[in-house]
């Protein structure tokens, strides 16, 4: 909002500096947020208590879920489940331990996929910024690549290991999962980076021309810093998509060790005996998503100097 006025000679608002009110707003947001979560949890429990055991069916289609113990656990059961052993035998790992390890496993896959996808996406955006013809040729395909569910090829990457190898190194299932993860991460990155790199206005670009500093230095001095406000949401979206890619990738290529695999295997072993069993790996997947978003938020804090333009 500041500086919208034609320019009276006073310093306009020093950007939401008032600490006191902002603290109060934070408390309020936190409190209401907790209340919201509590409300959602109560709704779940209420439905479980009073909802129809067999769900509600209209015609042939079930429209409201079944509330019986076999499929709908209590909220607390989702969490107590973490302490139970994975198998009945003695010395078995707890579910919590298994999910923790799997969460870390998937996070690493997603992280690698994210980095690869971000690099490719950014490089493509740079190329499109450099050349209009490249942009005209590639952009429609970049857009199409995401409107179409190319993630459908995930199961098809499972067999790559048999045929791709360089010396003793062989393409493995983790590589296939990373490809899927990177593929999903690449799109938001390329679109966001293209928007950001072309965001400087004509005055700023002409100024660089006047200074006679060439494309590369203009890129480093102007385009790259100006792109930061666009890069951060792109990075966050890419991080979320990388986690989705890793989870889905694991299930579709049958890679063991991550939360995606646990989601499937817990669901299968638990069957109808333990409805809560399905939840710990799902919570693990959520945690991965939150960590990924958190990392990007941290990057945003580090780069806050370049985000001043966001509100201007």
């Amino acid at each position, binding site marked *: 909002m500041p500086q919208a006025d034609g320019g009276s000679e006073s*310093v306009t608002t020093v950007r939401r500096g008032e600490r006191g009110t902002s603290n109060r707003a934070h408390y309020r947001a936190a409190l209401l947020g907790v209340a919201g979560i509590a409300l959602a949890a109560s709704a779940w429990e209420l439905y479980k208590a009073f909802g129809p055991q067999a769900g509600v069916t209209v015609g042939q289609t079930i429209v409201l879920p079944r509330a019986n113990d076999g499929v709908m656990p209590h909220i607390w059961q989702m969490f107590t489940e973490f302490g139970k052993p994975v198998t009945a035998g003695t010395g078995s790992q707890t579910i919590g331990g298994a999910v923790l390890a799997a969460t870390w496993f998937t996070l690493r896959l997603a992280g690698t996929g994210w980095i690869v996808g971000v690099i490719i996406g950014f490089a493509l955006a740079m190329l499109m910024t450099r050349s209009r013809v490249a942009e005209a040729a590639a952009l429609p395909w970049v857009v199409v690549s995401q409107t179409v569910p190319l993630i459908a090829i995930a199961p098809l990457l499972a067999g790559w290991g048999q045929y791709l190898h360089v010396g003793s190194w062989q393409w493995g299932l983790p590589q296939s999962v990373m490809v899927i993860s990177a593929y999903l991460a690449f799109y938001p990155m390329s679109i966001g980076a293209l928007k950001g790199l072309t965001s400087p206005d004509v005055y700023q670009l002409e*100024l660089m021309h006047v200074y006679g500093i060439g494309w590369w230095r203009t890129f480093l001095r102007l385009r790259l810093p100006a792109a930061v406000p666009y890069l951060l949401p792109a990075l966050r979206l890419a991080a979320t998509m990388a986690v989705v890619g890793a989870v889905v990738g694991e299930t579709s290529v049958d890679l063991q060790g991550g939360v995606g695999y646990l989601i499937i295997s817990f669901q299968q072993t638990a069957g109808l005996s333990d409805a809560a069993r399905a939840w710990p790996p799902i919570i693990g997947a959520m945690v991965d998503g939150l960590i990924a978003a958190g990392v990007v938020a941290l990057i945003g804090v580090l780069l806050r100097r370049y985000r*001043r333009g966001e509100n201007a």
Partner: protein
Amino acid sequence: MTAVALSGVERIFRTGKGRQVVALEAIDLTVGEGEFVSLIGPSGCGKSTLLRQIADLDSPTSGTVSVFGKTARQARLDHDYGIAFQQAGLLPWRTVAANISLPLQLHGVEKATAAARVEQLLEMVGLSDFAKSFPDQLSGGMQQRVAIARALAEQPKLLLMDEPFGALDEITRERMQSELVRICQESGAAVVFVTHSIPEAVFLSDRVVVMSPRPGRIVGIVSTTPVAGVERGEAYRDDESFFHGVQEVRHLLHSGHATDGPRGEGAR
């Protein structure tokens, strides 16, 4: 030596389907060293296009442009001029001081020298207290002053300004004009100044170049140097010679071509 010399400059823009627009036609103009020249005219008369030829932001279809005896391109690469646009075009992630030192930094000026120069410039534009502020903390007028300081950073002998006060309110604008007069006197730079405010042109300039559109050409040049004994200060705005200059420019604007009147800015 002259600061700027244009002769027979013509600029034709080709739009789609073989149509063309003559933006500038037969422009001959010289600007002396230390001289303040304004370009004025209605929208579309090519005054900004003319400035862009001098700045080597665009090239003429025919004719020659020379800046301090060199080609416009060479002058640009030699950092012979400073430039300010209608919008300040500051980099939001740099402080005021860092914005002003940008050209110095890009052209490899030593850090200590640059810092001293920035301090000097901040004082000149009256923003010493805001060195560490960021552009979004400044008003429009203050931002524009930073842009002017940036344009002066390399002590150019020529200053090119494209409606630098166009987005400011009248009160701020008059104050900025007075400051610009002072700054120019201190730096001794020649100025080519694009505006569509008649009083602004008359107040600032030694000569006002009046242009008309379709095709963009010069219809006349009015000498607006204050008569002996009159200072170019606030009092000048109430002076007879000032009114006279305004009148003369307005007559010239309204004669020749009044097909597409000025957009309503300027004097009433």
